[in-house]
């Protein structure tokens, strides 16, 4: 006897459609959306102090190392102590209400609770000193900090992204004196670039970054 309506005969077509089209779509979405590029980039938490890199690093043109002093000698790029802020702000904007938190910290000795922005997975041992001394500029990973009112992540910071540079460092290297130059552009010739990369041997094996 006839059990099913005629319309059910389109089932095979429907199934094919679902498997190929919908399946493909899902894969694509997952592939894109669940990637660091999507997860990381653009994360810009609000900070306890409305510190503007655009003002300090950009307009005032302060060098990164004025505050992140030990970045060339340490794995950590050290957030400056309140001390450093007070170095200027005892004279400049000494009464500004926006700096109240800083003054309180200085008075009480309690640290300012900055919110961490750039964070690699804990098992990835990134070393600022190593990269800076190899000629990787701040901007390469942190983007145009000097144009950020609030610091945001500008690069995926995923393993794939790291490897892109580790496999072909040349284009990302710059002269040592340009490390903190945010506006620096790669103008050197291909030969020059490769020459620069010649004595840089970024690891691609596990223990290079994971210990």
């Amino acid at each position: 006897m006839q059990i099913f309506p005629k319309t059910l005969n389109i089932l095979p077509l429907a199934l094919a459609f679902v498997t190929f089209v919908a399946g493909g779509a899902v894969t694509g979405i997952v592939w894109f959306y669940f990637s660091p590029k999507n997860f990381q980039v653009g994360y810009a938490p609000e900070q306890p102090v409305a510190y503007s890199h655009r003002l300090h690093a950009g307009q005032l043109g302060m060098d990164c190392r004025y505050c992140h002093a030990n970045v060339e000698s340490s794995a950590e790029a050290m957030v400056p102590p309140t001390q450093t802020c007070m170095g200027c702000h005892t004279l400049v904007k000494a009464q500004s209400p926006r700096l109240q938190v800083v003054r309180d910290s200085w008075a009480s000795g309690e640290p300012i609770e900055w919110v961490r922005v750039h964070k690699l997975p804990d098992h990835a041992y990134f070393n600022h000193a190593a990269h800076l001394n190899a000629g990787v500029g701040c901007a390469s990973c942190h983007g145009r900090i000097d144009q950020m009112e609030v610091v945001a992540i500008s690069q995926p910071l995923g393993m794939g992204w790291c490897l892109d540079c580790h496999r072909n460092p040349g284009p990302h290297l710059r002269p040592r004196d340009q490390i903190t130059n945010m506006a620096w552009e790669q103008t050197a010739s291909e030969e020059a670039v490769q020459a620069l990369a010649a004595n840089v041997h970024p690891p691609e094996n596990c223990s290079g970054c994971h210990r």
Partner: protein
Amino acid sequence: MTSPTKTNTTVESDERVASLLLAEYETPDGCADAAAKLRDAGYTKFDAHTPYPVHGMDAAMGMRDTPIGWIVLAMGMTGCLAGFLMMFWMNGIDYPLVIGGKPPDAIPSMVPVMFEMTILLSAFGAVFGLFGLCQLPRHHHPIFNSDRFARATDDHFFISVDASDPKFDLKKTRLLLEGTTPAHLELVEEYAS
């Protein structure tokens, strides 16, 4: 199964068109003879419905060989190649690492996976090829309008002649089939939709 020429009665619209003639036989031989007759009479759009594959029926119906083997072969080779390329690219090209001091793109260790991929895709080829060639699933078919047809999956043998067959003529075809002494003969109709 009352009158010899019963047509099914459950009707929504009176618009009915002849869909196919359905002849029922007790034995495979009767069925096969009928098939042979239809073949010799030059019918093309007719079919035999049996509870199990009856041997000689293909010949009786004058069918050509099935191409499914070629589909499987193609799929199998695809699988083998895909497996090889996948491993060679992943371990050998995209991220070569020294594993146990061996070359990253060592071929011998790829053989098992290549083999399994071959089998897997071949199997897909066989099954989905089968569905494709048989145009299954097809849940609705006019032939199901016949109540007696249920025995086609039990112990009886049927011959159906499709109305769309160029040589199909209600009278002539019926005569032809009656000539094969079917246990039962009926006209299956389908609602024009």
